């Protein structure tokens, strides 16, 4: 099996480098550059999977690390936008709590499986992509209330579905 120190995980880790400039841009009102930070973070998310395939370094840790990086980066973007009052806090609190619950469910699933394994949720993959856009809508002040509340509802339904799959349904590790 490939080492966990590999090019794909390096690309995943590099996504965290977009966080400090994002904070600076929001603090100084450079909203278009803040949007650019989110776009770069999203593009790196697309690239890391391709790098893992090209360098043949797909690992269970990499899959979990990628999911964690998604949660941390997009959660951080939303948190900063709330702190600077660019977006309403109630839907963001709901979204962040659901995100934490989702991470907890995945840890429980891995413990249930007895190995480092990432439950592949097709619905959550869509939600993660939506979360990237949510940051963009937030920094550009674009129909914020509509998109944020719609996302909170979709995320709640997705987490409820995934909770049943991870905790109740029989384990299907080949699908993970």
């Amino acid at each position, binding site marked *: 099996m490939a080492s966990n120190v590999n090019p794909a995980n390096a690309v995943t880790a590099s996504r965290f480098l977009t966080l400090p400039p994002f904070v600076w841009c929001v603090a*100084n*009102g*450079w*909203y*278009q*550059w803040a949007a*650019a930070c989110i776009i770069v973070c999203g593009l790196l998310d697309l690239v890391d999977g391709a790098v893992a395939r090209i360098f043949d370094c797909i690992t269970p840790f990499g899959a979990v690390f990628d999911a964690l990086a998604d949660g941390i980066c997009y959660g951080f973007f939303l948190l900063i936008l709330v702190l*600077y*009052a*660019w*977006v*309403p806090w109630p839907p963001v609190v709901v979204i962040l709590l659901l995100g934490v619950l989702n991470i907890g469910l995945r840890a429980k699933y891995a413990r249930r499986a007895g190995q480092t394994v990432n439950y*592949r*949720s*097709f*619905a959550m*993959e*869509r*939600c993660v992509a*939506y979360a990237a*856009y949510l940051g*963009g*809508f937030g920094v*550009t*002040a*674009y*129909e914020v209330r*509509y*998109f944020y509340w*719609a996302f909170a509802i*979709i995320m709640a*339904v*997705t987490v409820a*579905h995934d909770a049943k*799959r991870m905790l109740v*349904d*029989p384990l*299907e590790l080949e*699908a993970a």
Partner: protein
Amino acid sequence: MTAPNLSSEHLILSHRGMQYFVTYLTGIVAAYWVVIDSVRLRRALRSDREQGAVRDQIFGSIVGLVIGAIGIIGSYLGSP
């Protein structure tokens, strides 16, 4: 909620240009999303639905279609 402090300096596009960019980007991506998930849903519905992974794909595609619809409506609501 207080209005965000949006600087008029160091812009990549004008404010209005940015609004058009976000509107078109949202609409185009959402429409693409609807098309892709329609195809994936049709494919998943033809597979063996007894498998949990196939049911996950069906649910994921439905969520994708809803998100696509939300994006299309949002781009209409936010059009300049």
